[in-house]
């Protein structure tokens, strides 16, 4: 069967990335924990997307609330607005939007950074300086993005709910206490846990794809640009695919 070239390349990429991810686990457990570099990367990766996550989260919460209100008013359930918005943000919008922003910011910068290090032989230089570049560069960055994205999602969710609170109060009046009481009463364990767990997978996907694209980028400066670009595209697609898989799995497990 002849698959369209683009789709075939996507499948090939996914296969190679899976192998790259396997390499991550086999190298990650070997000695010489690059702890200092890991902490540095956590700081860089987490901090650099914080502002963007906060801004987009706030706007999403606010806009979502304002858009949903008319429909709920029509059905005469405007009082349920915080619950609707809260569930939407915590279960889906918060994790996915934050992960997409994160992909745009981190996958591209990691892809470009490692790509240019590869092209200018810096990765080879590390190797001859008694350093395993895969551990020093890739393992630390993948671990950092896996660790930092869940935290960013928590922050994003909280700011988003803050935006929603303002959105609710534009046309109505609710106290902050009542607003959160209403949301928390209606959120169950089954809402929060899968949403939180999938953010680890999103973070891992962004880290692995960014590193893979950079680490294997071809020679020449245009290879670096392509690495950054395709890292963003592929990791964004993977985020949706993981989202799709997680919703199926939690459905089967009866968590929905």
């Amino acid at each position, binding site marked *: 069967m002849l698959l369209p070239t683009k789709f075939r390349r996507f499948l090939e990429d996914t296969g190679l990335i899976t192998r790259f991810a396997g390499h991550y686990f086999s190298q990650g457990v070997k000695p010489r924990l690059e702890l200092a570099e890991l902490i540095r990367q956590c700081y860089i990766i987490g901090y650099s997307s914080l502002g963007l996550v906060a801004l987009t989260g706030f706007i999403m919460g606010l806009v979502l609330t304002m858009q949903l209100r008319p429909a709920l008013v029509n059905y005469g359930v405007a009082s349920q607005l915080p619950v609707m918005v809260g569930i939407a943000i915590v279960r889906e919008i918060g994790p996915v939007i934050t992960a997409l922003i994160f992909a745009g910011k981190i996958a591209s910068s990691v892809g470009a*950074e490692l790509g*240019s*290090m590869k092209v*200018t*032989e*810096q990765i*080879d*230089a*590390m*190797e*001859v*300086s*008694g*350093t*395993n570049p895969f551990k020093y560069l890739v393992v630390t960055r993948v671990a950092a993005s896996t660790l930092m994205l869940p935290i960013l999602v928590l922050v994003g969710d909280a700011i988003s709910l803050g935006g929603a609170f303002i959105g609710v109060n534009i046309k109505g009046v609710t106290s902050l206490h009542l607003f959160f009481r209403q949301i928390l009463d209606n959120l169950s364990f089954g809402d929060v846990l899968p949403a939180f767990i999938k953010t680890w997978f999103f973070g891992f996907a962004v880290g692995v794809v960014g590193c893979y694209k950079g680490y294997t980028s071809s020679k020449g400066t245009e290879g670096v640009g392509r690495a950054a670009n395709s890292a963003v595209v592929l990791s964004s697609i993977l985020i949706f695919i993981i989202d799709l898989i997680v919703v199926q799995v939690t459905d089967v497990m009866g968590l929905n």
Partner: protein
Amino acid sequence: MENVIVIEHLCKRFGSNIVLDEFSLTVGKEENVVVMGKSGAGKSVLIKCIIGLLKPDSGKLLVFDQNIPELDHEELDRVRARVGFLFQSNALYDSMTVRKNLEFPLRRHWIRITQKEVDDMVTEVLENVGLAETVDKLPEELSGGMRKRIALARTLILKPEIILYDEPTTGLDPVTGREISQLIVEMQKKYHTASIIISHDMHCVKLTADKVSLLMGGRCYAEGTYTQLEQSTDPKIKQFFE
């Protein structure tokens, strides 16, 4: 004379592209060998095999009497600590200052070393290349010639017994190129290193070479001192000396 590098019948191909085909070369202690060859002849591939960045397909490749392709990671790292590599593109870490760049191989190769010793070595090696004032600068703030010097300093900081230079003067203006060649000679004298120097720059070759090897068609086409090869009547050799 005792040999520090012995290469015999080394073969390396990428798919159908045969790059090294039974290449042989020996480098003695404190001997400086220049490898010349056209662009794409496989000179970089050769020295990357020597440092273990590429794995040859077959042949013998001894550095300090150890067969490089057979070494495990730790053994390879121990050899690498004694062999310096000056990359054609310098390969300075552009996210790190000059100081951090120079400290990197030290901290990586020797785990037990005091900060004072590190500082002293950084200062010494920067003075050797005449750039003591750049210690807190980033590579992007330096000119091409200065970057080459810093890269050389980073190579020298481990006091290697062998240095592999990949086109050290290519891409520099003639004056700076000459300064770098001069510096290479000075460092050879000071640290008594053996070296393999890849170069097309006749001034650099003349200045540094004890022996010249011509890499052509994947093998050693000719070998001899600079004067011997310069006087050759073979047109294939002559073209390099015009």
